[in-house]
């Protein structure tokens, strides 16, 4: 059913349709409305057998979904920014325990200075936890990816937490037409969760053991192997999704106009929609430009990126996060995918803390690169003149 809804509702509705057994969460802007919507559904008896708990903190919320998942439940939480950082210790733990928790991150910058506005520094900061990370560009994509996240995470070949990253405010609070799923479709796609191991009095097992040096490394390498297997599993599920809903999300990347492009712009998240429009317009003007959207940041689609960019003379990677003291995160990963090829490389950081990214800025950026007016390397766009101050 196609409806104009706000992002947080599209997300909450997809969570409801996925029939989690336990939801535990804690409010933080701009995620709050997601859990408020779920709380309202719970209060109105619309969540079926789902138990909804408001935690004492994000740390508690993450710990509760960890416990719930270990007991054999399908478990969901959502957060942003400081909340995600507070969850970090638990999320590393959940990944190591191979618990297929699904969480939505309504992406927000991190403090200090305090900012409630969007960039993706929060989720990027825990990219090494062993959690699948997927970035969406629209609320339709957010809506569809939630059942998919549960299905992939719970696959026996995967068993890793799954994080769906949705740009805070830009998507979470935007009104967009969304083709809302129905229960029958989701039920067909997503069977109830059947854990391999759970806390069960009939079959006592110890979860979360302590591993001295002769054992530890194997556990961690096994996570890496599971993340590799997640690639195949995810592709299969994208296909299944297409068969069932007619919506084709492609795979981990979406390459548009890349084959003959002189300049390709690489990005993740909601900014992709804007880049697509600009690229389409420029193509009409006969300019050889293309666009590469990265959907899964972990596992990182090295091969697909390399394939899409192999003909590009110039590559522009847009990051909305920093790795202070090194290359911006997405640029670093794209570069590693391109090892041995040497296109002219532009690493552009923009839109931190909700800084506006006007269409003209993207146009100028691509034109400058196309015309050879921009110096390769790393730069910040949309930055004002400032004097360094220590607050």
């Amino acid at each position, binding site marked *: 059913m196609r409806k104009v809804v706000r992002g947080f509702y599209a997300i909450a509705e997809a969570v409801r349709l996925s029939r989690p057994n336990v939801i535990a969460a804690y409010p933080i802007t701009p995620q709050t409305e997601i859990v408020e919507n779920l709380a309202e559904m719970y209060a109105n008896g619309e969540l079926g057998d789902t138990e909804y708990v408001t*935690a004492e903190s994000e740390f508690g919320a993450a*710990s509760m979904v960890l416990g719930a998942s270990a007991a054999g439940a399908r478990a969901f939480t959502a957060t942003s920014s400081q909340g995600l950082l507070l969850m970090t210790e638990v999320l590393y733990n959940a990944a190591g325990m191979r618990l297929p928790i699904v969480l939505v991150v309504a992406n927000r910058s991190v403090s200090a200075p305090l900012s409630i506005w969007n960039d993706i520094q929060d989720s990027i900061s825990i990219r090494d936890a062993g959690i699948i990370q997927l970035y969406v560009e629209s609320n339709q994509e957010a809506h569809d990816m939630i059942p998919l996240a549960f299905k992939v995470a719970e696959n026996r070949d995967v068993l890793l937490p799954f994080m769906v990253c949705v740009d805070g405010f830009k998507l979470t609070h935007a009104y967009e037409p969304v083709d809302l799923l129905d229960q029958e479709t989701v039920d067909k796609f997503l069977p109830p969760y059947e854990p391999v191991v759970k806390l069960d009095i009939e079959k006592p097992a110890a979860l979360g053991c302590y591993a*001295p040096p002769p054992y530890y490394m194997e556990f961690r390498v096994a996570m890496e192997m599971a993340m590799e297997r997640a690639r195949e599993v995810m592709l299969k599920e994208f296909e299944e999704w297409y068969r069932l809903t007619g919506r084709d999300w492609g795979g981990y990347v979406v390459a548009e106009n890349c084959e003959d492009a002189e300049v390709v712009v690489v990005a993740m998240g909601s900014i992709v929609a804007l880049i697509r429009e600009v690229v389409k317009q420029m193509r009409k003007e006969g300019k050889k430009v293309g666009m590469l959207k990265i959907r899964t940041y972990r596992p990182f689609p090295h091969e697909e990126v390399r394939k899409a960019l192999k003909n590009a003379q110039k590559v522009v990677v847009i990051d909305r996060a920093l790795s202070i003291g090194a290359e911006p995160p997405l640029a670093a990963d794209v570069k590693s995918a391109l090892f041995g090829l040497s296109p002219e490389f532009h690493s552009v950081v923009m839109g931190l803390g909700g800084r506006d990214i006007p269409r003209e800025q993207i146009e100028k950026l691509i034109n400058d690169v196309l015309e050879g007016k921009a110096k390769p390397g790393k730069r910040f766009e949309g930055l004002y003149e400032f004097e360094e101050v220590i607050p």
Partner: protein
Amino acid sequence: MSLFGPGHGACPGCGFPIAVRGALEALDGKVIAVNSTGCLEIVSSMYGRNTWGVPYIHSLFENAGAVAAGIETALRALKRDKEAHVVVFAGDGATFDIGIGTLSGMMDRNHNVIYICYDNEAYQNTGNQQSMATPTGAATTTTPAGKVIPGKMGRKKDMISIAVAHGIPYVASASIAFPKDFQRKVKRAAEFEGAKYIQVHAPCVTGWGIDGKLTVEVARLAVETGLYPLVEYENGKLVRVRKIKDRKPVEEYLKLQRRFRHLFKHPKGKEIIEELQRVADENARRYGLDA
């Protein structure tokens, strides 16, 4: 398989195995055990050497309350809540200090969990650092007895009152010196629906510096001096206390332990011993301990 051990690696004479085994037996092994990081976890859950005969989970140092809450919620959602009791075993560091937030959340939401704090009065797993459960004057590696400062300053936190203040249905203190009493309390706790908090005094031979054969004796003296009152609250009301015949002076308890040895020669030691005696007297008055 036995419910706990015998393959665990706790030091000979350690107090907490008595509590763990006692609780599991009291509940006929119908337990899902949740354990925080600490001595108990390290000695019982090494990969390939699990000593638990019940389903067991360890997550982090400071989240056992929330993990247990999540398990309990899941069992309810899955309609498996009659299957087992969700029981936390957590050290005093995990309980009084770093995990008090998640424990408070668990108690506030009144999850159907029995939370057992084995109180060995310091961070023993990491080598005897002070916790908020460490009594006044005790020497730990972070509150050493120096020339100026005679061990830990400040009082042992009153977790029992904090638990009671949460309005949960059952709160009790216990001691491994009185295992039958402890087991009765665990059974009693299981009769209440909601959050239950039991704090069981469990000496640590290495951290306290006691002879492994004297564990029970030392724990008994803590009770008999009034320093560790055994009390029981049901629905917020004090319903039972263990009465003491001829309450002993605190020195009798202190002198058996290396952690208090300096008090008998330090210039400020006498003051500290007097302070501990005041704590014991105050406990006696407050709970009506003297028989």
